[in-house]
């Protein structure tokens, strides 16, 4: 899970264009909306990057579409990692 979390943080850095210092500040409880101020275009890019890496079962945009407003505001990086662990595959294996 820690390895997966680090991978997702690296993908976040890629879609935002941020740096290592920014990455180091990201915790599982960090929120995408309030803390990272992720814009909708960046969320879309993250969703696509996760799907490329972890397979078609990972559809973060679809997952977010099913959330209510408080859940969207509260969505954390750790929750994204849990979602990927539950739905993704990596090198033919279940991620989590």
């Amino acid at each position, binding site marked *: 899970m820690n390895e997966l979390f680090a991978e997702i943080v690296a993908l976040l850095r890629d879609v*935002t*264009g*941020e740096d290592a210092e920014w990455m180091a500040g990201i915790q599982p409880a960090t929120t995408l*909306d*309030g803390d990272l*101020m*992720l*814009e*909708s*275009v*960046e969320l879309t890019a993250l969703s696509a990057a996760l799907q490329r890496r972890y397979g078609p079962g990972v559809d973060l945009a679809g997952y*977010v*579409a*099913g*959330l*209510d*407003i*408080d*859940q*969207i*505001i509260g969505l954390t990086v750790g929750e994204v990692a849990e979602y990927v662990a539950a739905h993704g595959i990596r090198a033919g294996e279940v991620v989590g």
Partner: protein
Amino acid sequence: MSRFLFLSLPLAGHVNPMAAVSRTLVQQGHEVAWAGSESFLRPLLADDTTVYPIGLRLHRGQSDLGMTATRSRWEGYIVPHCRFTRPAVEQAVQAYRPDVMVVDQHAVAGALVAHRHGLRWASAAPTSMELTRPYRALPKVESWIHGQLAAMWTAAGLSGTPPHDLRFSPHLVIAFSSKALTGTAPLPENVEFVGAAVAGRPPGADFPWERLDPGRRHVLVTMGTLSMDIAKDFYERMVAALRSLGDRLQAIVVAPEGTVADPPEHVMVFPQVPMLDLLPRLDAVVSHGGLNTVCETLSHDVPLVIAPIKGDQPINAAQVAAAGAGIRVRYVRATPEELRTAVLAVLDDPTYRAAAARVGESLRAAGGASAAARHLALLAQPVSSLRQTELRTTDA
């Protein structure tokens, strides 16, 4: 001649286009009144416009971004504004007895009072926030908003549930935009697009026109009225982006004094500028993407670089980018290099200006404040028997 009662929010971006329509109606001999803050509205309205006073209550600062901003817009602004203004709007309707109410999509009290009195009313969309169902991909967010509207309906003592989405009058919706911008987004059938409404706005600030060098191109940077720390940060990145371009452009930056430290010679900083007088001389506008700025800019065939912050700005940015009339950049994270690339693209690639001219033509053809006034005057006319039946059904 008819009587119109206007209701908006005490926000310049909301009031300005509606005030232009109000002035046009007065010029045409109609009677117009507003319900709102006298001190806020008076400078924007024609002299013989009545204002039924509603105190200017300060709401919690709107410093949030993202979905947090959407939640605070409703819980911290729209809902309290409705609760606070509804009694005063009710009194204004009883005192003024308007033929038609003109109600900002976010001033829900107006919709509730119009329903209670069986009045004809028009929704006004001075922003794009509610017009195109931007949350249609997030059904639970949409239903949350409908829940807020239903709660306001109940709190007003009206029985049952709202007969329709209260942000959309069944009689008329006036949108200060163009179909060239909204594209294929779903819309109610009674939406009338009128483009930018700027008629009669008071003249803006003085400007040192002699400082504009005709040998260089001109870029306006205007990010609206912001108090957030990251606004300063954006200006710093923007000025860094433009620093090496003094040989080919001059930038006019609208920002509070002290926002930009040591600007280079070709970057001029002013707390305010006469936007409408400047636009004919501009080659590009860098903006937060407020709808008025976007439509006024495109009405002058000028392409945009938009760094949207919140509210309808990301929607407007996406619409402008889809129309080919500009480039969307990221507000929080765009680097000086990204910003410079975007500015140079809209300046140097003629397709952006051509697309801006296409949208501009549709905006100018939409007719602005006078077209809005025409639609409203029609709505105020005695109704035909068919229309009357329809209205009675709606208001029942």
